[in-house]
């Protein structure tokens, strides 16, 4: 490129909850330099175009978590995100929106109350009896630190929380940030509230079992916390530490082993029966549709239609020597 500057249009979400009935979008044209951040562009809208334009900002160092917004649907931390990178990704019209439109108070500013309530609900702090007169430091090994290091990078910016589709449809769900924080403290070798926290995350409706595994959180996080990876670790810890109760979700996870041992493949019919127990009745109308389309075979008691992996003995042996967890 001959020039390091690019002329772009910013379409910004505008809304004042006190005076506006509906939000609207306003366009701003500007020339953007290669080193400018999204925060610079927010500042320029306010300083050069409209002094009433509102957004949160504070540290300018990617650590306070205040300036998260969405650009063309992508969660970004304004003070960390280079503008030209997004222009390359999305073209020369950038759409600035708050993290959650339905929580908008003014322009980019949202009410993050649900985020903080959920964060607080997982006891996001170290629970330990601390000797008021310690004689030595509480030293952690490198491995102990490595277990929690990336989870500890979280700055509570809300990027993952408001990128999570479950947050939008299930108001009880704790969400990726709170769950990653739960992992952060549960996996801390100095903490004593692990089981209590794991029990919170094991609740159906609000805990880890309601994650849809869409990886929006991993994609959204500006600090590479990778929340869904921490959610998977919490799932495993529930089994490792005997917190997992037998329910439809835990049986569904464990039931895979039962199928794979027998066939190598997942027995799709059996996993539903096994996980649901008597609750399987609620799948009746869908089961009938599948039978009608020839997709399932309810009378195949001998499982003659089930595929079987070649060298199934290898699979059985590997399960025998590799399985660590039980339900």
């Amino acid at each position: 490129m001959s020039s390091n500057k690019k002329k772009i249009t910013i379409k910004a979400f505008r809304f004042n909850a006190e005076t506006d009935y509906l939000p609207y979008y306003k366009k701003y044209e500007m020339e953007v330099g290669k080193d400018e951040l999204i925060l610079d562009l927010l500042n320029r809208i306010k300083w050069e175009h409209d002094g009433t334009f509102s957004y949160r900002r504070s540290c300018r160092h990617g650590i306070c978590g205040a300036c998260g917004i969405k650009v063309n649907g992508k969660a970004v931390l304004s003070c960390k995100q280079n503008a030209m990178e997004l222009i390359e990704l999305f073209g020369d019209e950038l759409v600035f929106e708050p993290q959650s439109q339905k929580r908008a108070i003014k322009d980019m500013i949202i009410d993050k109350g649900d985020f903080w309530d959920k964060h607080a609900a997982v006891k996001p702090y170290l629970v330990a009896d601390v000797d008021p007169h310690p004689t030595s430091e509480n030293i952690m090994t490198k491995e102990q630190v490595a277990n929690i290091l990336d989870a500890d990078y979280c700055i509570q910016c809300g990027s993952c929380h408001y990128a999570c589709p479950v947050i939008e449809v299930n108001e009880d769900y704790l969400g990726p940030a709170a769950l990653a924080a739960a992992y952060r403290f549960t996996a801390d070798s100095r903490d004593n509230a692990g089981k209590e926290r794991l029990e919170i995350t094991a609740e159906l409706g609000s805990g880890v079992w309601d994650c849809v595994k869409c990886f929006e959180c991993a994609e959204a996080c500006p600090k590479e916390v990778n929340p869904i990876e921490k959610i998977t670790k919490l799932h495993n810890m529930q089994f490792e530490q005997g917190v997992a109760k037998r329910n439809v979700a835990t049986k569904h996870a464990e039931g895979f082993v039962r199928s794979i041992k027998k066939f190598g493949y997942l027995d799709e019919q059996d996993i539903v029966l096994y996980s649901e127990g008597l609750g399987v009745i609620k799948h009746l109308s869908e089961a009938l549709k599948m039978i009608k389309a020839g997709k399932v075979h309810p009378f195949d008691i001998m499982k003659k239609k089930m595929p079987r992996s070649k060298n199934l003995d290898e699979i059985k042996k590997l399960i025998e020597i590799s399985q660590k967890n039980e339900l």
Partner: protein
Amino acid sequence: MSQLKYALYTGCTARESTPELLSSTMAVANKLGIELVLLDEASCCGASHLQDFDDFLALVLNARNICYAEKLGLDMVTICNTCQLNTAMTKERLDSDPELKAKVNEKLAEVGLEYKGTSRVRHFQYVLIEDYGLDNIREKVQVPLSHFNIAPFYGCHNIRPSELHHEVNGGENPYVPTSLDNLIEALEGNSVDYESKNKCCGFHVDLQAPKTSNALSGTALLDAIDNNADLMVTPCPLCQLNMDLKQDSAGKQLGRDIELPVLHLPQMIALALGCTAEEIGLKYNVTKATDLI
């Protein structure tokens, strides 16, 4: 073009509740002269649920599956986004962590196998686009899909996390994916632009949180319908199952009638390439799709 040849990892669904996925995949490969060697030794990928129960066991089983592609000296091709995710994630973790790889290989050695990391793991969608090429596909079209508005539904596990997939999905932008749209256009169909195309269908919580699942799948289906889609197409059989099978319950929950045929990606291609009705297998679709031929 030299003969394209891959090791096909079918996953479970294509061998059970979506036989139409396997038959249409084989038919498309056959029409295009792509050789697919079935990995009959492979096991289930764990679908992210086994990973929740016992992560290490899932790694070992997925590594074993890749071993069989390596033995053939071929890249592994998947036809399910979730298989793609779990297999590619296993590969990435083992390739970047020698200690973990050694632990997994210690187990695999017990059955005479070794994971080396020599086979790439790729989804059929991107193999078609990158190796075979859209222009070549365009030349093979016998039944142009020009009379259809087709809504592409990308499915999470082919596009996110983008860092994992970028090397094998042509650097697809998870916020503005285009590959399926381009493929639809290559078959002379009209691709529908709608917001939900890169969203989640909710399949993975269908048992424990059907309301979440219905809300997500229903919203995406209605979004496609409201943008004049005649049908939806997806490269993921789990998305396909959830969105094809649960239209009544999703519609009930959202207070609107939903009726939209949802095709597997290879079914759509097979339609355009003039494959037989038996191969395309539209009779296996729950929401009526047989009159698309």
